[in-house]
């Protein structure tokens, strides 16, 4: 297991480094990879002293102030959503769950939109207000969705998705309504409904980093219990797992990760669905691999999506949520189809 993780991890990190260089390089001004590496190394203490600047200050400004924060934010948002998705799938034992399909993203976005509409986004506890409120509304949404879907103490897959869609459309309507009602903040709220990473700067990266790091570490440490849960709740209880506590704590942290991601980037759907599934196809069902590799994969996926969002129709920017939906929705349909086929095979 450990050697497998190291192998996949090295491949993932190499892909990540490559993606990073490409995504920083491509834009209105093209920057060569060598120059980017030199600029980045120059900013690392100790090593930086050995590199003499031979680039224009404009290049340095573009890398350090514009592209690097945006690309890193994409990495963090993607990693958070993908890890949250993997955790939701594990704990609900439902392959179609992710922060978006469960309505958690929309719930978080509603909280954020209301705050912005009222102009309260920095009151109460400063920069933590938005993620905290988004977390509360996201958790409430998850609770309602699970309550709606519950049938005889169980949550069938179809019910869960249906309840998620219902909540998502309703909350989406509320956010759109707020957008229509508000005059000056239209664009800001609109971002939250379709997702964007533009013009965020370093402060947002700094807000998200601790949530992402702690969330990843916690959920990774629960990977063994998620494996056990995959054998069924009864099996897990008999093997000594406190199932209710595990489920609650994993749902809690996954929702927190989602809320933190949504409060900096808005609703970006399907990342948590697509990435863990691709990882699962490559590595198999072991969550000790799926959780950390989903973080890498989610980051890479998000950086490429954002690159597409800002460069395909440049200088117009496509909302990020639309890019991920172009990839994610057909993938969702494919998963539904496969599920149906599996059931047909079982019937025979």
């Amino acid at each position, binding site marked *: 297991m450990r050697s497998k993780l190291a192998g996949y991890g090295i491949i993932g990190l190499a892909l990540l480094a490559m993606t990073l260089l490409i995504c920083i390089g491509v834009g209105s001004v093209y920057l060569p990879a060598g120059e980017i590496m030199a600029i980045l190394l120059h900013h690392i203490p100790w090593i930086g002293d050995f590199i003499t600047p031979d680039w224009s200050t404009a290049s340095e400004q573009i890398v350090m102030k514009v592209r690097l924060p945006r690309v890193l934010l994409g990495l963090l948002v993607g990693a958070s959503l993908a890890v949250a998705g993997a955790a939701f799938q594990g704990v609900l034992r439902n392959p179609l769950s992710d922060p978006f399909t469960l309505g958690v993203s929309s719930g978080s976005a509603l909280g954020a939109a209301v705050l912005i509409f009222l102009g309260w986004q920095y009151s109460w506890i400063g920069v933590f207000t938005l993620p905290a409120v988004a977390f509360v509304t996201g958790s409430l949404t998850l609770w309602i969705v699970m309550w709606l879907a519950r049938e005889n103490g169980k949550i069938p897959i179809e019910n869960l998705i249906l309840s998620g869609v219902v909540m998502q459309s309703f909350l989406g309507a509320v956010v759109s309504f707020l957008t229509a009602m508000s005059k000056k903040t239209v664009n800001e709220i609109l971002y939250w409904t379709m997702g964007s990473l533009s013009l965020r700067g370093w402060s947002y990266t700094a807000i998200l980093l601790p949530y992402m790091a702690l969330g990843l570490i916690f959920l990774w440490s629960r990977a063994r219990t998620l494996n056990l849960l995959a054998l069924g709740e009864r099996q897990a209880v008999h093997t*000594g797992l406190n199932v209710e506590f595990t489920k609650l704590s994993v749902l809690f942290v996954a929702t927190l990760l989602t809320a933190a991601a949504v409060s900096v980037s808005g609703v970006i759907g399907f990342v948590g669905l697509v990435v863990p599934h691709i990882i699962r196809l490559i590595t198999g069902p072991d969550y000790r691999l799926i959780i950390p590799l989903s973080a890498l994969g989610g980051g890479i996926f998000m950086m490429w999506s954002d690159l597409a969002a800002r460069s395909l129709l440049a200088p117009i920017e496509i909302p990020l949520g639309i890019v991920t939906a172009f990839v994610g929705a057909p993938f969702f349909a494919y998963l539904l189809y496969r599920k149906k086929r599996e059931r047909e095979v079982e019937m025979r």
Partner: protein
Amino acid sequence: MIEVHHIDKSYGSLTVLKDINWQVRRGQFWGVIGPNGSGKSTLISLLSGVEKPNRGQIKLGGRRISEYKRKELSRKLAVLQQDGLPPVAYPVREVIEMGRFPFQNWRGRENSEAARQLMDEIMAKLELNELASRPLHVLSGGQRQRVALGKVMAQQPEIVLLDEPTTYLDIRHQVQFMELVAGWQREAGLTVISVMHDLNLAALYCDQLLVLHQGRVVAEGTPEQIINSEMIESVFHVKSHIVTHPDQGEPQLLLRKTDRANVK
């Protein structure tokens, strides 16, 4: 080892178990028999601590089951469910290793040399070495049930509860499974409580039987004491002949066709 004192269990207005009293001693092999709906599986759920009785108490080694922490209980008592393991994609050896969960710390570590040795023994005993890296969902029902037994063995329990473990197996695998359990019981001085559907298999392998009917204990004792055609008729409503097994003398059941003239 296990003391069951006056337990009642009901779901809503439906009473499933009424005033059950029962003592299980260390090293015994108990079979729990009775018709469908007589409360056998509920009794197993209560013993495993997953559900709680409405009245009365169950003690394990002198302590109430409800006082045990989940992990602590799982080091003493293991359960093999009727449906065994689901068809997931985890490889055989990893599933069996999951049985070590109650012994691992939060990082999933334990004294790895001893644990590896135990795993090797289990894999060899259950003849699973060839299947070690095969994912569960490609195995046959018999193989999967053997893996389930391996996972329970990895728990190194003092008591094992089996809930109709051979229901989905053909006769070859039924006998193979019961032989494995009996062998394990002898070697480890294990206490076994198994819900059994097949009365002949129960009489062959269990040294004590508990008969449940409509939520009550109607008989308990050795197969020789209990299995007779009157009991079978009153509990299961079938007519039978009881014969003695030529090998060891255990009672075995022969079913009789209903005489058409007697059907109203």
